[in-house]
């Protein structure tokens, strides 16, 4: 990205710095690219080889800290730990499918201006890395569910980028239809507008920031494993993914915080789109989830999945027993819920810090006011209503 003629001294310095950041990030990402390792790990994965092991630190287990976790046997806890991996990365697959597409539409919007080739080349590498991530996650998640249940629980058949990213979000058919229209509209706008293209990366940066909060802990399981050579492959995949995503988070920040300053100030319409996108992100991250702490699912959308797990041979519960423990997990305060709330709060404060200097965001978005309205009492009230409806099915 070369410098515009006649720019003032501080602007020259800032833009040289942005060029330097892009070059460094791209060079480092190429050097450390974990695509080959991910492909190898996926090819070598056999559930039987690591079926009796934790894949993540214990606190990253499905419904960790809940009555289910407290009462589970050691072997059941291992499975809950593995299912956290399956569920978490099933969500990440959805996000990365969208990322592959919007990387390209945004790159088009930026490439339409002079001198943005460096960013586009960087995003091309990231998109190819996302495909390797998805392939590895799918292999492990689908084989695991097949081995444990003989059916899909959290995984799903491959899908396109206009599907709602949150796989267990608070949604219904009309919301999903409207979301698809919004995503198509955003793709159209961002591919023809450099400012709006940069705003995709503001949202991507926020989402990736949340990802880093959890993923660096998931990756630590392999990094601190006493026998790395024989560590479970899913934990290796967590680390490889974490390393690639460091560069993706960085590029999101560079584009949304630095490159955007090289563009004309946004018009009123462009600011509106940006603020709508950030508000949409807040809406997606409003809930806290006990099922997968760190992914902000709407837990009632996961009741059916949890019941299937509990009634499977893993827990071997009858429906009434399963629903009783679900009631205790989801409608009563417990350690797992407290932990989910703490993780949500960390994400909230992180997002506030991340967007603090983005001038064109509204005060409500800078303060993440919508997301901040989520609390324990609201969680329990919504779950109690939803659970009553669920029990009536």
């Amino acid at each position, binding site marked *: 990205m070369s410098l515009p003629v006649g720019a003032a001294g501080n602007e020259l310095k800032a833009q040289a710095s942005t060029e330097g950041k892009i070059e460094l990030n791209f060079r480092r990402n190429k050097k450390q690219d974990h695509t080959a390792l991910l492909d190898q790990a996926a090819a070598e994965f056999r559930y039987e080889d690591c079926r009796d092991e934790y894949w993540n630190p214990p606190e990253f287990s499905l419904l960790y800290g809940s009555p289910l976790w407290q009462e589970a046997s050691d072997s059941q806890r291992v499975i809950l730990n593995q299912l956290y991996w399956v569920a978490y990365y099933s969500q990440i697959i959805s996000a990365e499918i969208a990322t592959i597409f919007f990387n390209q539409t945004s790159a088009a919007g930026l490439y339409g201006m002079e001198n943005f080739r460096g960013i586009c080349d960087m995003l091309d590498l990231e998109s190819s890395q996302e495909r390797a991530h998805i392939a590895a996650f799918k292999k492990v998640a689908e084989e695991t569910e097949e081995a444990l249940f003989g059916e899909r629980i959290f995984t799903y058949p491959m899908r396109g980028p206009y599907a709602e990213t949150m796989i267990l979000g608070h949604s219904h058919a009309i919301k999903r239809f409207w979301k698809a229209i919004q995503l198509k509209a955003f793709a159209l706008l961002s591919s023809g507008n450099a400012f709006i293209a940069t705003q995709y990366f503001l949202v991507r940066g926020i989402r990736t920031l949340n990802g*880093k909060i959890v993923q660096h802990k998931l990756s630590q399981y392999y990094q601190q494993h006493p026998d790395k050579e024989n560590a479970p492959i899913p934990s290796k995949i967590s680390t490889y993914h974490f390393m690639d995503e460091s*560069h993706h988070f*960085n590029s999101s920040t560079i584009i949304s915080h630095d490159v955007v300053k090289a563009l004309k100030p946004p018009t009123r319409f462009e600011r509106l789109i940006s603020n709508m996108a950030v508000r949409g992100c807040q809406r997606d991250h409003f809930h806290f989830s006990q099922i997968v702490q760190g992914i902000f699912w709407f837990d009632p959308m996961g009741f059916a999945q949890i019941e299937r797990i509990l009634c499977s041979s893993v827990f071997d519960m009858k429906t009434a027993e399963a629903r009783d423990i679900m009631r205790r997990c989801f409608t009563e305060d417990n350690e797992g819920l407290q932990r989910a709330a703490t993780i949500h709060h960390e994400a909230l*404060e992180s997002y506030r*810090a991340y967007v603090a200097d983005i001038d064109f965001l509204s005060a409500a978005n800078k303060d993440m006011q919508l997301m901040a309205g989520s609390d324990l009492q609201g969680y329990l009230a919504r779950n109690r209503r939803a659970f009553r409806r669920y029990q009536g099915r």
Partner: protein
Amino acid sequence: MTDAQPSYLVSFGGDDSGSPPLRLPEGSKLCEELDINNSPLLFGCRTGICGTCLVRVEAGEVPPADADEQEMLEVYAPNSGLRLACQLSVRSDMRLSRPKAGS
């Protein structure tokens, strides 16, 4: 942290001097012990590539930046004396401050 394990106080200066200090085990990595809930520091990538966690080490023992960190600092904060907090471990009492915007 056991009674026998050495620990040090990590405190915050500048605009964050009101943030309570934390006692952390010797050798622990700042990015594994600190987060936005218990400190004013925001960590991003935690691998030394994004510059989100730039800090000034106002007091305390830290080793010199290695080549990778040095290369990052030359791009993200040239001639500033700043460090990447995610690359630092606790070796003594420390006082950290965040750089002001534009510095």
